[in-house]
């Protein structure tokens, strides 16, 4: 409705007058028609505005109401799964070697040992393998604390297994334990050797110290088993440890699981025996029940 400025002469003004007269006479709406149109249009306007207002308030509420169960459906199981996963991961993590729950795990494992000597020994040998694996894995990661924890547990199990085997008076069982420990000693020696090659990093040193302690512990246990067997160390003339029931069990004291390991050939910190070296004891034999 901007304002137009036009130059019009009398003729144009006459045209405008006539057109205006025409519009007033023939095109102007009847007031009643205007009232009808206005009433209908305004009713429609109120309806539409009200509908829009309701929609603006209701739709978000409906959306929220619809979204809530959906959110719950999605979030609640996810939350529960996350909690369980967190608990599981936390528990597993905490029960790892060096973790806060590791001693509890060890205690549970010890409490769940079978009552029979042979079965108990077999399980304990499995536990020894597990501790050894944990120690090696922790050593690979340079986690000295985990190595120490795993090997501490290892020593405890080894003491318990050797004591149990000695108390049983079963020479074959003692030989089995001794062979397992000897095998572990070789493996630990190799790990210590590998760590020595890595340099003098603090973690490597700590790991190596723990491993060395385990090696020494194994040596002591083996000696004790040998003494218990009464045959004495080296009585079989330096043969390799053999599996239970192997043909070399004729020596005094029965089986030669580790009993024929000479102290001089025992892996030392600086030169641990390697399983692949021919002049070292063959540590591969394991009990058939392993």
């Amino acid at each position, binding site marked *: *409705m*901007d*304002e*137009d*400025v*036009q*130059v*019009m*002469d*009398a*003729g*144009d*003004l*006459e*045209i*405008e007058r*006539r*057109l*205006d*007269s*025409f*519009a*007033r*006479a*023939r*095109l*102007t*709406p*009847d007031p009643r*028609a*205007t009232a*009808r*149109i*206005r009433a*209908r*249009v*305004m009713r*429609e*306007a*109120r309806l*539409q*505005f009200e509908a*829009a*207002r309701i929609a603006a308030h209701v739709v978000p509420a409906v959306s929220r109401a619809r979204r809530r169960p959906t959110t719950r459906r999605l979030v609640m199981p996810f939350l529960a799964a996350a909690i369980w996963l967190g608990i599981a991961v936390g528990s597993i993590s905490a029960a790892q070697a060096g973790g806060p729950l590791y001693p509890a795990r060890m205690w549970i494992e010890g409490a769940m040992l079978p009552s029979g000597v042979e079965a108990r020994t077999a399980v304990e040998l499995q536990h020894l393998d597990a501790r050894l694996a944990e120690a090696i894995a922790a050593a690979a990661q340079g986690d000295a604390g985990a190595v120490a924890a795993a090997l501490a547990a290892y020593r405890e199990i080894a003491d318990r297994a050797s004591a149990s085997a000695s108390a049983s008076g079963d020479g074959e069982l003692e030989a089995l334990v001794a062979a397992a420990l000897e095998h572990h000693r070789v493996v630990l020696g190799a790990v210590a050797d590998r760590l020595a090659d890595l340099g003098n990093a603090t973690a490597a040193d700590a790991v190596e110290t723990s491993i060395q302690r385990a090696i020494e512990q194994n040596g002591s246990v083996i000696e004790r088993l040998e003494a218990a067997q009464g045959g004495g160390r080296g009585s079989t003339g330096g043969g390799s440890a053999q599996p239970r029931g192997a043909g070399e069990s004729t020596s005094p004291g029965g089986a030669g699981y580790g009993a024929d390991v000479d102290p001089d050939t025992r892996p030392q910190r600086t030169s641990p025996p390697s399983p692949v070296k021919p002049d070292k004891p063959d540590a591969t034999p394991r009990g058939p029940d392993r």
Partner: protein
Amino acid sequence: MTIDDAAIDRLVSEAQDGDPWAFGLIFDQYHEAIYRFIASRVQRPSDAEDLTQHVFVKALEALPRYEPRGVPFGGWLFRLARNAVIDHVRTRHEHAALDAIVEWAHGDAGPDEIAVVRQELDAVRAALASLTSEQRESIELRFFAGLSAREAAAAMGKQEGTVRGLQFRAIGALRRQLGIDGDPAGAVELRIAGPAGATTDG
């Protein structure tokens, strides 16, 4: 009553916000112009009434999408009216026939006066019928609906200068048809503003 563009824009904005009172004022501002424009192009007053209502309902529905940038609201509204008329004529196979338009009452005029007026109106009707479609539409939007050249251009979808040219030629044709001679010495400056009123002062 005429109101300026800024006031119209405010009313439109308020109506877009859901204010029926504002939309009522918009209706009051434009309904007569819309009706006149439609009535000049359809045969029956009842059709003009229905179409006028239809145009405002369509405007109501389309109002949220209207943006004041570029197209004046009057032009936008009359474009809706123009499209409604075109659809109506197309579906009814109806051609705008000014002959059929009913003449409103003439108040207290006597029979002679009524006869003179009727003769004059018939002459105007005949002159309008002689115009081209575009010229006639430009006249309808300008003089019957009271739109500015800019608004008429927006309604017709043409350039403002084009519409001015159409109007200029249409007025010339009407003058010739109606036998109105020009008097250049009597030229006056005419200001035209607002719909449905063609408020003039000069």
